[in-house]
């Protein structure tokens, strides 16, 4: 292929390059200071014994050896986090897609329904968790009282290690408005002509969904999966607040490490454990090792996800 654009003289190009660099400088500086430096610092500290105050001491791979062979809670914390990645993310996406699909078809009072399903997403996460812990309180919560009224002995919800994560899953589904609204926009954006053409070709309803709708919304689907997985890998606020409130020891500022993970570390996520080791146990070097491992895992998951879906672009699918 040939190009018809004539090359500009080098003399002109140089000042323009400096101008572009000048305009990019704030962003580049921000990237260096707030991303590259902390990243390199974390990697360096992960090989040290560091308490934030005294000088870091180089201890080689000891933090990593401890992480993989001796840490009593890291595997449970990682397992809990993977539960949220593997269960919460797909359930939220499938439910949000289903709700959006229904809302597209809602002919009457569509605005009302869309608002209704989006509203929970406006509730601040902490308030939403507090409300859920109250609603699902085993002894006095309305949910178990209703269940009791119909003869069902409700579970202990946030106070039972077996039910604490599913309880947060219910919360995650309730606040799916943010994902749902993106799916709704993408579904509304699918060209009607494609459906009409498919109908003329004799496509059935599920075939339209599989061969028309799905390829059209793949970019949005990928976006939702990627952002959902990253958010789940860093799951912290909801689990921390649920543990704190359900344990009955909700206090401000004092001894947060004691309630994180309640009950029986079933809600202890990887990032919570990182926080405890760093700021309650003063093991910043070890916390850096935990952060580096999380970064590597998140990067690998992301790369695999993007590689897997590369073959599923709208062009390929069509």
């Amino acid at each position: 292929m040939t190009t018809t654009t004539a090359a500009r003289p080098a003399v002109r190009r140089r000042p323009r390059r400096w101008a572009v660099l000048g305009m990019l400088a704030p962003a580049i500086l921000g990237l260096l200071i707030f991303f590259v430096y902390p990243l390199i610092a974390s990697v360096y500290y992960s090989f040290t014994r560091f308490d934030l105050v005294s000088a870091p001491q180089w201890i080689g791979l000891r933090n990593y050896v401890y992480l993989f062979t001796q840490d009593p809670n890291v595997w449970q914390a990682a397992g809990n986090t993977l539960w949220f990645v593997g269960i919460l993310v797909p359930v939220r996406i499938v439910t949000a897609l289903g709700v959006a699909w229904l809302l597209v078809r809602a002919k009457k009072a569509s605005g009302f329904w869309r608002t209704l399903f989006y509203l929970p997403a406006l509730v601040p996460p902490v308030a939403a968790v507090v409300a859920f812990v109250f609603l699902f309180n085993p002894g006095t919560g309305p949910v178990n009282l209703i269940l009791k009224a119909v003869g069902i002995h409700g579970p202990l919800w946030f106070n039972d290690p077996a039910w604490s994560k599913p309880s947060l899953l219910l919360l995650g589904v309730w606040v799916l408005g943010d994902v749902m609204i993106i799916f709704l926009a993408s579904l509304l954006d699918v060209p009607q002509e494609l459906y009409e053409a498919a109908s003329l070709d004799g496509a059935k309803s599920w075939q339209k969904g599989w061969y028309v709708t799905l390829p059209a919304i793949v970019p949005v689907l990928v976006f939702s999966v990627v952002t959902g997985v990253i958010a789940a890998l860093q799951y912290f606020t909801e689990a921390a607040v649920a543990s704190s409130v359900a344990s009955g020891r909700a206090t401000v500022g004092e001894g947060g490490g004691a309630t994180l993970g309640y009950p029986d570390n079933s809600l202890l996520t990887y990032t919570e454990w990182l926080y405890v080791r760093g700021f309650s146990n003063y093991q910043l070097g070890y916390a850096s090792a935990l952060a580096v491992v999380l970064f590597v895992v998140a990067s690998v998951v992301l790369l695999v996800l993007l590689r897997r879906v590369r073959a599923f672009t709208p062009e390929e699918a069509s």
Partner: protein
Amino acid sequence: MNRHSPTRRTGFVLAMAAAVALVATGCSPAATNSAIDATAPAKLTGTVSFWHFFSDREAKVVQSVVDDFEKANPGVKVDVHSGQDDEKLQKAIAAGNSVDVGLSYSTDIVGNFCSSGAFRDLGPYITRDKVDLTQFSRTVRSYTEYKGTRCSMPVLADDYGLYYNKKLLAAAGYSEPPKTLGELEKMAIALTTYIADGSIKTLGFNPMMGFYENAASHFGPLAGATWLKKNGNSAIGGDPAWTELMKWQKGFVDAIGYDKLNTFTSGLGQEFSADNAFQTGQVAMNLDGEYRTAFIDDQTPNLEYGTAPLPTADDHTALYGGGYITGNIAGISKGAKNPEAAWALLKYLTTDTGAIVKLSNGLKNVPTTSAALSSPDLEVTPQFKTFLDIAANEHSGTTPPSPVGAGYQQSFEDYWHKYQSGSGSGLAAGLAKVDKDIDASIALTAGP
């Protein structure tokens, strides 16, 4: 353009070198202690930056004592930063921010702040000014120093005892609180009432570990249980006192039923609210700190209650009268700009009887000096008196400072929680694993 041109490669290498240099130098700690004057300055001047965690009403109490200090030292201005928790304090000191005196709610930071140098060694000031450390009890002295380095001073103490509802006890035919854990369990079961469906209506005593102040640290002194050996390693598995306490607690939980207790506990109000289960009468006896007296005065003044030392394990009745002691501690930060004025403020807050009594009356915490404990100006109700006695009792104990903060306590409590629910391994094997985990964590921080 060549993707690996020399210019590009050089730029990358320079950027990496700059970043590594930043890492190596940017976060290095500032210079530490310098030599102090041979005598205390006759007149103090300058500004002292004072960080503490109190807020609202309690911050005003602290401010009133700071005002007194400023009046007594006209050349000194105290710049007060309230509402600063341990994490913020640690970060501020590490970042070299202006912190002269830091006050923490937790004795758990002492091991780290002493060993890391975040708080200065106060030994030279104490020696120079001839501060009598015997005015503090042995227990209080033990939680304000680490491995012989005194880097903090006690501000006020929290002592833990037994609160009991006089009406509920009288209705069940009891006029005295229990003195042993066996008596506590027997009375608690007699005091527990149920509704028609079998669920708990009123609980005599909640044995669940993790409920409000039910913590291993608070139970330990009831059997004289030890946490750490002299070399800093865990002593938990090898101390039969813990086994005795855990077996008693699990037996008590099983006697009522784990699920039943869990359901009841989850329906109780938050600890630091007016819905506190003891204040609402849902729990007849409760383990709590002296500060609860202030909450009751404020939120449920009509509650008829008494206080007593916590019951001891059945095999340790000689320990009766003691309890768990912890408290607020304060120190001078490594980067203090005005250490002499900081020391003067710290000394005033922690050794001046008038200041301590004023703080104690305002915050409703236990004073830590013998003079303040016996001061006629100290406001003492019969319920509060119990905690003054616990403070003075030789059998009272605390949790030892450690470089991992409260990490060793959390490892143990994690296991205790599993054990009480029945999901833990056999007790001996479980405690051996706890020892191993704690030792590994301490070794990671303190080195081989």
